[in-house]
C-alpha cells in the first residue's frame, strides 16, 4: 500500500493534521536550508552582483569568478583545503585508533579503578577548550610541534577523545555478551574478536566518532589560529577570515561565499553518507 493510500484511508481530522505537519516541516526545512542555498547561489554570481540592490537569490549570469579570486587569497584555497583535509583525516584516524580500544576496554573488561578512570576521562569534557589554550601552546612549543599540522591533530584528537570513548563504550555495550562468548569458544583471539566480530557490529559508533572528529577538526578556528603561524599551513576557517578581512578590512562577499561553499560541501556530503550509521550510533545502548 502506498503512502498516499494510507493517508486517503484516514479520517478527515487526521488528514488535516498530516498536511499541517508536512507544511510545518517544509517551512522549517526551508528556514534551515536557506543560508546554505543563499551561500551556494551567491558564490556563483559575478562579483558585481554580490552587493546588488535589490538582492536577487539567483543570478542569470553564472560565474566562477569568486572561486578564481579565492585562489589569490594567501596561498590559494586548494592549499588550505588540503591542510584542512590532512588535519581532519589525521584527527579521525588517531581518534578511532585510541577510542576504539579504549571503549572496548571500558565495555568488556573489568579492572580496578575502572569507574573512576572513566569518570575522569568524561570529566575532561567539562573543561572549556579555550581556557587551556595557553598551557597547550607551551606544551606544543616544548614538544616542537607548534606551527605543525601534526601538533594541531594531537590537540584536536585530545579534545575529541572523551566523547569518542563514551560513544565507543556505548557501541560495544550494545553488543550482546553472548556474541563475545561464542567467539571465545570458537577460539578467536582478542584481536580476531575485535576485528571480525565487534568492529563490524560497532560500525555505527565508529561512523559517529569519525563524523564528529571530522566536523570538529574541519570547522575549528581558534586553536588553528593560535597554534599555526605559517600562512602555508592555515586551514579553511582561517582562510575565510582572511577573505572577510582583506586589505583595509574590505570584505569580498563573493569570494567569502565561495569559501563558505568549499568549506561546507565536504561536511554535508559526509553527513549524508554516514547519517544512517550516525543515528544508530547515537541511540546504541539506549534500549536493550
Amino acid at each position, binding site marked *: 500500500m502506498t503512502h498516499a493510500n494510507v493517508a486517503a484511508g484516514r479520517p478527515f481530522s487526521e488528514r488535516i493534521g498530516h498536511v499541517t505537519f508536512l507544511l510545518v516541516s517544509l517551512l522549517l526545512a526551508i528556514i534551515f536550508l536557506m543560508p546554505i542555498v543563499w551561500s551556494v547561489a551567491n558564490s556563483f554570481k559575478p562579483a558585481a552582483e554580490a552587493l546588488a540592490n535589490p538582492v536577487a537569490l539567483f543570478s542569470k549570469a553564472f560565474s566562477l569568478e569568486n572561486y578564481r579570486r579565492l585562489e589569490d587569497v594567501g596561498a590559494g584555497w586548494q592549499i588550505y583545503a588540503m591542510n584542512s583535509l590532512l588535519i581532519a583525516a589525521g584527527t579521525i584516524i588517531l581518534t578511532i585508533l585510541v577510542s576504539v580500544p579504549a571503549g572496548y576496554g571500558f565495555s568488556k573488561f573489568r579492572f580496578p579503578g575502572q569507574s573512576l578512570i572513566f569518570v575522569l576521562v568524561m570529566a575532561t569534557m567539562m573543561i572549556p577548550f579555550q581556557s587551556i589554550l595557553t598551557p597547550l601552546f607551551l606544551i606544543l612549543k616544548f614538544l616542537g610541534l607548534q606551527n605543525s599540522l601534526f601538533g594541531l591533530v594531537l590537540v584536536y584528537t585530545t579534545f575529541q577523545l572523551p566523547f569518542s570513548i563514551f560513544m565507543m563504550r556505548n557501541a560495544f555495550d550494545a553488543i550482546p555478551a*553472548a556474541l563475545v562468548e561464542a567467539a571465545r569458544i570458537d577460539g578467536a583471539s582478542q584481536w580476531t574478536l575485535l576485528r571480525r566480530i565487534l568492529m563490524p557490529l560497532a560500525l555505527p559508533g565508529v561512523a559517529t566518532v569519525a563524523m564528529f572528529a571530522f566536523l570538529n577538526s574541519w570547522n575549528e578556528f581558534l586553536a588553528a589560529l593560535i597554534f599555526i603561524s605559517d600562512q602555508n599551513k592555515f586551514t579553511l576557517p582561517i582562510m575565510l577570515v582572511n577573505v572577510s578581512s582583506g586589505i583595509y578590512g574590505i570584505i569580498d562577499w563573493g569570494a567569502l561565499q565561495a569559501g563558505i561553499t568549499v568549506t561546507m560541501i565536504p561536511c554535508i556530503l559526509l553527513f549524508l553518507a554516514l547519517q544512517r550509521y550516525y543515528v544508530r550510533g547515537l541511540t546504541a545502548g539506549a534500549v536493550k
Partner: protein
Amino acid sequence: MARLELRNVTKSYGIYEAVRGIDLNIKDKEFVVFVGPSGCGKSTTLRMIAGLEHISGGEIVIDDQVVNRLGPGKRDIAMVFQNYALYPHMTVRDNIAFCLEQQRLSKGEIDKRIAQAAETLHITELLERRPGQLSGGQRQRVAMGRAIVRDPKVFLFDEPLSNLDAKLRVKMRTEIKRLHNLLPTTTVYVTHDQIEAMTMADRVVVMNKGLVEQQGVPQQLYFNPVSKFVAGFIGSPSMNFLPAKLVTEGTGLFVELKDGTRLAIPEARRSRFASAGGKDVTFGIRPEAISGSQERPGWVPFHANVELVEPLGSTNMVYFNVAGDICCASLDSEIPVTAGAMLPVSINMNQMHLFDLETEHSLLCGKAA
C-alpha cells in the same frame, strides 16, 4: 572419546556461593541434563565447564586433562546459547565457518565440513542468508550447525529452546535428541523445563541452591525422589503435598491428614516407614496416582470435593480440597466430573511418598541427613 569430570567444583561471587561443591562424572557420549529453578547454579556450572567463568575451587577434567586454566577456545567444546549468539553481520556459512577458520583448516576441508553439517541439519538452502533473515527454529539449527561442525569433545547447551514457541520447542527437542543419536557426543544440557530434562536425558542432574540434589535416569527421579524438592520439581503437574502424621494402630500404619482422614499404607511398604510411626510428615502423591474410584490392593477410596476442572483432552486436571489444601488429580476424561460435585476417587498408596517435615528428605529413599 570424551569423559567429563567435575571434582568438588565451586563458584563464589564475593560472599555469595553460586555453586557449592559439585562432583559429577559424565561418561563418554552420555546426554546429561542439568535441571533446576532459576538461580540454582546450573548455568554457572555449564559456563564453568565452557571456561566462560573462572572456577573458585575444585577441578574440571576433560579426558583426564584438568582444564581449569585453559581458555574456552582450547577446551575443544562447542556451546549452543539461549539466544543463539549468531554473528549478525555474517552469513550462515560464515557463522559456521568462523570456528573452523580459527583452527586454520584448509578452505576445502571447511567447505566439506559445512556441507556435511548443513545437510545433517537441513539448512543447506539457508547458507547464504544472514541470521536476521531466519526464523527462530532456523537460527536454532544454525547454532547447532556451528556446534557440530567442529566435532568437539563436549557439546554444551544453555537453555537452547527457551526462546521458541511451545510447538517448535517440542519439535526441536526431538531434533536435538535425533542429532545426539546420529552424532553421539558427550553432552551437557541446561534447562529449567523438567519435561525437556525427562524426555532428552540419559541422566538428569537436579540442582538446588548450588548443590546437586539428586541425579539419575529420568524414571528414577520420577518414582524415587530423594527429597520434597526433587519430588515437586520433577513431574508435571507437580506432586501434591499435604501435611500429615504417621500413625500406628494395631498392625496397621496410616497416613493421617489434618482433618483426621486416615489413608492405609499397603502392607508391602509398611516396614520401610515403621520406624517413623508417630512422626509429623509431608505426604506426597502425584496427580497421576489418583484415579477414578477403583478397588485394587493398595488403592484407598476417597471422596473429593471438586473445585475446578481443567480439560486437557485425554485427561482432566481435577482440583479438589483435602483438609484445607488443594490437591490435583489427573483423571481420565471419560469420568464425568463437574466443579462443586463430590467425586469418589482412589489414591494409589503404592506410589505415595513421605517426607521428613524438617529435612524434607524422603523417608523412603532419602539422602543421608
